């Protein structure tokens, strides 16, 4: 833009400042972000998703696809189930147990159909653990949608990271790296289990 138009535009912008609206004022959207961050912010879903991502990354594309689809279905079931049966409480330990099982499978190096089964169990556990508290239907749905997207993104992120490492470290080196990661994950799960569920 040239000439006086530029000056008028600058003057208009100067005279008409509004509030900075970096955060959308859309009503209820905060619930979406709360749900989105929940799987990464709470230890049990985080550990579960990390372990499942590791197992899926080790499983190879065909099994990983099946595991992911089952995870999606189970996650949705876990998020929706509380609508019918009420919000469950104190079920976080299930996600931790699935995380431990998945990490043990990864440590063994023998990742097969069990990875798919664990993805189903993990999706259900993460869904139940991320189910929103009771409230207006619209707000609950928005929060549940955030949890669904967040849990998915996290799993895909971890799976993608492991897959990239698999591409670079082929064969035995990848297996050793994955087993070391699984060992460290089990150590964290054990310690957290003692802190959270101990006396």
């Amino acid at each position: 833009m040239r000439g006086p138009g530029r000056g008028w535009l600058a003057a208009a912008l100067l005279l008409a400042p509004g509030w900075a609206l970096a955060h959308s004022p859309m009503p209820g959207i905060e619930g979406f972000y709360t749900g989105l961050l929940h799987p990464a912010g709470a230890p049990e879903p985080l550990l579960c998703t990390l372990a499942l991502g590791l197992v899926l990354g080790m499983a190879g594309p065909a099994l990983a696809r099946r595991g992911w689809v089952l995870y999606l279905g189970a996650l949705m079931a876990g998020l929706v189930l509380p609508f019918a049966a009420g919000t469950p409480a104190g079920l976080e330990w299930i996600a931790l147990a699935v995380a431990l099982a998945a990490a043990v499978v990864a440590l063994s190096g023998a990742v097969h159909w069990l990875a798919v089964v664990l993805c189903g169990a993990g999706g259900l556990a993460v869904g139940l653990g991320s189910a929103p508290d009771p409230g207006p239907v619209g707000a609950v749905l928005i929060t549940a949608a955030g949890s669904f997207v967040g849990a998915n993104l996290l799993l895909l992120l971890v799976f993608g990271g492991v897959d990239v490492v698999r591409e670079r470290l082929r064969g035995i080196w990848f297996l050793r790296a994955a087993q070391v990661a699984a060992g460290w994950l089990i150590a964290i799960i054990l310690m957290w289990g003692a802190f959270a569920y101990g006396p």
Partner: protein
Amino acid sequence: MPGHCVFKRFLLAAVPLFGLFASAAAQAHAGHGVAGGFLSGLAHPLVGLDHLVAMVAVGLWGAFLRAPAIWVLPVIFPLIMAFGAMLGVLGVYIPAVETGIALSGVILGLLIAFAIRMPGAAAAVIVSAFAIFHGHAHGTELPDAANPFAYAVGFVIATGLLHLGGIGLGSLIRWPAGTWLVRAGGVAVSVVGAVFLIA
């Protein structure tokens, strides 16, 4: 103007000096919350010399034992150490923990100094026995203020990185001079352990 220059120089010197004397402790990290817990866990294995040398020694010995022990030991040690920490958190009593930690330095140091090789399973049993003591001590010394989950993550990562550091140093055994250097490191580890044993 000379007077102006002198004043300017005075200001240039005085302002940083003023800042130096008027400064308080840097408080970017308040030592609590997630970051505080993570840093606390990360630092915990590093601050005790007896712990530190033993963990590096595991990696050094692994380098002498070669594959698969070189990868098995850094998986086994954090795993069993987390189990020991779990026992510590749960309040399970283990006798002579400090003696066990000091002995771990002495024995692992001697194994490195004499370049003793043994089957991977036997090495894993020896390392596991010592890892229980190290973990128990860390579990009972857990600072109350730390975020337990972040503490566990930092603690396991620091332990694992110390092992990897030991493996890295142990890779010097590819060269004859490096072998002697690593064996001398074993003597040093053993001496540190002996000092803690006597003290």
